[in-house]
């Protein structure tokens, strides 16, 4: 899909994500909206993964390390045809497979995540196996910026550089907010690009909502041969709905009926532009 087509799609994807959260009365709204454009580009343009090849050992792998933003992933997978969209109306209901974090019980999910700091180590194992098998498989993960405080990530970063895993791409959803406040208030992450480079990664910074820039960035993988790639995607938590943007209240805030109506209207205007 072209950047324009993806961008148009993103408005619909954002609306659907809000609808399922509104319906379930639960969800991680802000972080789902901040990774929506990244997932849209990965699944609809970059990765070699589809419902047709999902059982093929040579498919690309995506493991969402910041598992809490599962609603965005559900919406993108449904849109991609992994399961019917209506299924998502059962989100978080008794015995529904669509729970508040990714699980393999849902078609298209690679691993169960939800505890932060677990995705990157698993991706390292995936990427190393792919290297050993010469399979050409590429491995992707999205991490939260608050999540970066987990030590396991830094263990995995040392590993990925040591094994020259240039088939691995980690993406930082750099929305600058976590639960309690900003990263700067809770646990400073800066200078993150320098830290990642010092850990042996090739790093690119990108506007995580700019489709041309995202496509260009992902299409230039690996950034450097013999090095794992880190994309620092500057994003806005709650992106797309003005009153949700940059506000920690929307980390797992659920819209009221009135707020939902406001969000729908805002997105409708964007669609018409």
């Amino acid at each position, binding site marked *: 899909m072209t950047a324009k087509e993806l961008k148009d799609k993103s408005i619909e994807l954002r609306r659907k994500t809000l609808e399922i959260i509104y319906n379930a009365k639960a969800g991680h709204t802000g972080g789902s909206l901040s990774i929506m454009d990244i997932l849209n580009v990965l699944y609809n343009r970059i990765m070699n993964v589809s419902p047709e090849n999902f059982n093929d050992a040579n498919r690309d792998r995506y493991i969402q390390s910041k598992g809490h933003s599962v609603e965005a992933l559900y919406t993108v997978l449904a849109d991609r045809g992994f399961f019917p969209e209506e299924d998502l109306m059962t989100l978080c209901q008794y015995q529904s497979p669509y729970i508040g974090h990714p699980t393999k019980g849902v078609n298209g999910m690679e691993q169960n995540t939800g505890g932060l700091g677990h995705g990157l*180590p698993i991706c*390292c*194992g995936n990427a190393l196996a792919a290297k050993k098998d010469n399979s050409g498989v590429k491995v992707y993960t999205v991490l939260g910026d608050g999540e970066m405080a987990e030590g396991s990530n830094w263990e995995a970063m040392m590993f990925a550089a040591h094994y020259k895993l240039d088939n691995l791409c980690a993406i930082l959803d750099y929305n600058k907010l976590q639960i309690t406040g900003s990263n700067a208030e809770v646990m400073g992450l800066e200078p993150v690009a320098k830290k990642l480079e010092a850990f042996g990664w090739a790093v690119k910074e990108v506007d995580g909502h700019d489709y041309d820039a995202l496509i260009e960035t992902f299409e230039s993988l690996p950034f450097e041969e013999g090095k794992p790639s880190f994309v620092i995607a500057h994003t806005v938590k709650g992106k797309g709905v003005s009153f949700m943007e940059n506000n920690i209240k929307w980390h797992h805030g659920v819209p009221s009926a009135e707020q939902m109506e406001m969000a729908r209207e805002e997105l409708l205007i964007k669609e018409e532009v």
Partner: protein
Amino acid sequence: MMNSLEQLEMETKEIKNEVLLGKPNLEVFSATMQKLAETDRGIMAVTSDSRGSGKLVPFGQKFPEQIVEVGIAEQNLVGVATGLAAMGKKAFAVSPACFLTARSLEQIKNDVCYSDNPVKLIGISAGVSYGALGSTHHSLHDYAVLRAINNITIVAPADNFETEAAIRSAAEMETPVYIRFGKKAMPQNLGSIDFEFGKGRVLKEGSDLTFVATGEGVWPAYQAALKLEEEGIHATVLSIHTIKPLDTGLIEKFASNGQPILTVEEHSVNGGLGEAVASHLFQNGFRNKFKIVGLPDDHTVHGSQVEIFDHYGISEEGLTKTAIELLK
């Protein structure tokens, strides 16, 4: 000076009833890994600066493509092993049991068990094998924590035979498994040559009491049973190499005569084999006299593995005494 062969023969003779002393289970593990890797390129050993302690240096030299070093990073050890397993590799995550089942417990719970990745977790130098290195290096909690996590088989082989069989079975397993053992020489084989995860082995039969033992607690239980024989007391000895799933059928069979039951394990008395057996039997109407022998809920005494075992009565002498007490 005696050469080591003569020494081994001497030690062997000292073991009563024709039980042949073998190698440390740790060495059996590494030898088995080599045999498996020869014909199976999918076998992977993942280590956390632990290849020396895991006796895997020759393995690494022979199969450099099949060993993955993660450095001293046990969370990443289990994460990487998970990622390898998810790509179809037979990944053995090998690390001292103390670190593997504590530092990486969340990875075991989420990435391996919950996410259903068939990682083989190998806890080396388990229990109090590290002796005087102290409690940082002891794993007396591993059965307890892993028993409370679903989708994992927990195994503690008693002898060399069980160790080799367990490693071979693990390689073929499609669900998570944890195997732990020590580094002290163990008998070659205390029983028959039948092995299946979840099926205990009957090493000796007697009608006066039953030892239900696991791992390196089995041998002292066996020795105690022989000692008791001299006093006219006939004991059954079960090697429950699989702590979960527990062979409840076998345990019930030997409990049904109503005689006392003595469980033996190199683990805290809280949450291990003894409590698993007690819980099953009590819930199923059994009221046998019952004693759990293991490490008490206390700071562990300092000493070698043997000294610690002796201190807490996990020994021929200690278990003989406890058995006689229980029979009173």
